[in-house]
């Protein structure tokens, strides 16, 4: 069972949504748009590194930006898609078993 943490999940989803234009700057902005969370760049880079290490992400050198440096584009691998789907399945299974309205404690 391939589980993702909440942060990893958010990063993966952002990359999925960005399709061909997923690199560090856009990913950060996308997460901000999606969740309203101003992610720490250090955390983002660590997460990207770990996901790549696990084989969920593919890296590809993109075209150079204005400063002359080449950006690093990310893409989700098949293994990554699998992990995302399993995470969604787990989420929905858990949520399906929950009542529609949650009772508040005393």
């Amino acid at each position, binding site marked *: 069972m391939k589980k993702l943490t909440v942060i990893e999940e958010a990063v993966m989803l952002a990359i999925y949504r960005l399709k061909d234009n997923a*690199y*560090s*700057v856009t990913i*950060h*902005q996308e997460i901000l748009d999606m969740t309203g969370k*101003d992610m*720490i*760049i*250090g*955390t983002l*880079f*660590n997460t990207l*590194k770990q996901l790549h290490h696990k084989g969920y992400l593919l890296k590809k*050198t993109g075209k150079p*930006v*204005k*400063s002359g*440096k*080449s*950006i*690093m584009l990310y893409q989700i691998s098949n293994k990554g898609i699998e992990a995302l789907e399993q995470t969604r399945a787990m989420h929905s299974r858990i949520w399906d078993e929950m009542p529609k309205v949650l009772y508040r404690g005393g």
Partner: protein
Amino acid sequence: MKNTSKIPPSLATKLLKEFTSYDDEFNIVDTLQDLYSYKHETDGKRKADLWYWRQVLFSITKNLYARSAWRFVMIKNYLKIAVRNIKKAKGYAFINISGLAVGMACCILILLWISDELSFDRFHEKADRLYRVADREEYSNGDVLYFSTNPPNLGPALKENFPEVINSARYRNLRGRIIQLNDHVFNEDNFVAADPSLFKMFSFPFVQGNVKSALSDPYGIVISEATARKYFGNTDPLGQNIQVDNRIDLQVTGVFGDIPSNSHLQFDFVIPFESIEEYGYPLDNWGCYAFKTYVELVDESNVDVLNGKIRDFIKQHNETAIVTLSLQPVTDIHLFCRAYGDAGDIRTVILFAVIAGFVLLTACINFMNLSTARSGGRALEVGLRKVVGANRREIISQFYGDTLILTFISLILALALVHFSLPWFNTLAGKTLSLNLEQNASLVLILLGTLLITSLVAGSYPALFLSSFQPNKVLRGTLKAGAKSSTFRRTLVTVQFVLTITMIIGTLVLNRQMHFMRHFKLGYNQDQVLTIGLKGDLERNKEMLKAEFQKLPGVSGISAVSDLPTRLSYSRILSEWEGRDSDDKFLINLLLADHGLTHTLQMEMAEGRYFSHEIPTDTSEGIVVNEAAVRLMGMDSPLGKRVLGGRIIGVIKDFHFASLHSKIEPLLIGCPKDGYRYLMVKIGADNVAETHRRLQKIWSRINPGIPMEYEFLDEQFDRIYRSDLRVEKIVNAFSFLTLFIACLGLFGLASFTAEQRTKEIGIRRVLGASMSRIVALLAREFTKWVLLSNLIALPLGYLIMRRMMASYAYKVSLSWWIFIAAGGGALIIALITVSFQAIRAANTRPVDALQYE
């Protein structure tokens, strides 16, 4: 749109670059820069800056944590294992830690001592530009003498003639002054005359008064803080009057802070140099070598060039002079200018450094031995760690960490030991050392250095050896760690005992030498001779005093002299003699002594006669020389020859008037009317106290108000060898500790062997081996190695001691019994240590050893 003019806070960027690292080209810095410019456009600069800072700081913490999180987990595990290992074998841990602690404590004490020795005169702000003028005398016979006193004209002349010299200061100790304040009388030795520039050149800050004007008044005097307290208590010392030698009234014009103990200049009273004529010294002169001269040079002046220029400076002013000048850095004076008495000696520093090294090495060897002996038990652990993925580097760092923990505990213990033994060590070494970590940065460095070196040396073998185990071999049980390393351990034990035996030899030889020197035939009898300093008017009243003393029943001899036979620097004069080759130029020691000298000190004449009351010309032109002087002057029949405007009337047998470090020098004895500074009184062995009381009574009748300053000659004699005695005592203490540590290690190793061979011993016992056979079995192994160390250490010790003894002009022979005693002693002590364990092993019941088989 990106706007390049929007630059984020540069400090934050710098921090970020410093603490993060990513392989990609478009990295964390660029990303943040991009995001920053968006933020800047939407929210303005202030918000963007804040945001940037927050991002940077959190990124750094995240990054650091991600990098080291696993290490923390492992370190926790290593710590746990280390503690468990200590708990599992408390005895070994105790021997390990305490041995190392004692070794480190010794090392710290010695290092404290060494750093104090090396710190001499380095506290002056201008230390690297201050020099003392040193003289070199070359005699015609090839002897070379060095001294540091110069004519009074030299200092100002140097400053005038050489632009490199900015300042010069002359300095003369006028010891033995009588100082009167109201009704109190004090004898003061640290009384000096110096140029005011002394305070400008050296960092002796003033506490009260004006540095510039304090010494401009010829009747001003500046005193140290401690002296001000001693004389004036809480009242303001400035402007107070004191009287010197019953005749000169001086006014206190300044107070300087107490002189640190690591200064070669030590003084409590300073008077202006110009007033030195009042005390009987010439002020304008090129021939009186009595004044130390210090100079301050301009920055970056080339001392070698200047040395070349001043070399013959005195000769230019005084044709008869034979000295050549050179400059010596003040920071070298304490260690590199061998003056006798209390001064330091670089050779002692080196000797002590070697001893510190020996002690620490012995303790480290213990540590290594016990660690490797017990490494067999940890082989499995290493194997398992390797199987689950530890690489060699991690295992090495684990073992270094292990030793680091143990050495750290030892260091804490060692610091405690040093703390408690420091007062003892201070009395032994005659120092005022303190273990003040806050003020002494070099000490902290020394401690950390000791810690790291110890763990590196002690941890190397287990770390490098154990980490090389192959897991499959270890886990299958085919590798026996203990067996393989035993050769290594034996080698170490051998090294350890080589060090120990060498140190014992050194200690024995040094002790013998000290004994020899203290009981050397000096050529005179120093027993029961009281020396009394002549003060003030007394110089004139000396005849009266002598006559009165002579009447006392307990006094058997009395003589007035200019210098005591135990004083090491005599005044020297350039000598002329009949038949002298005009190229022969010598300064010869001169002693003034009246008629009673040979009788009081029981000296013998080789030829001729000593001064006599019956022949009045003796006082005006009689001269007695010693045998060394006759040899120097190359006279066949010295009697009646002219020397220095006098005539030789006798040759006295050579006697030692200096330390036994040097050979007997030529000496002239004259007997003029005055110029005497001491009385030597030979008193009978019985009723010493009564005689002494009567002497005192006569003194105070003739000199009311002046304290009688007296000392026995043999006490002074012992003081010459005080620094030798100190070295001897310190070497004694530390070589004993080395032996102790070595035996501690041997004890641990023996108990380990005995434990390993428990079953073997059990079986032997069952089969009928006697106790003594089993003890012999265990002892034999170690005895072999101690014997081998003897073979190495004895010649080594011989060579080292022969070199060390070369510094003594009169020395003991290195007799064979010293070596036998050192070797045999070490062997016996080792045997006792091992047998103790062996007997215990042999005493266990065989049933206990074998019941689990």
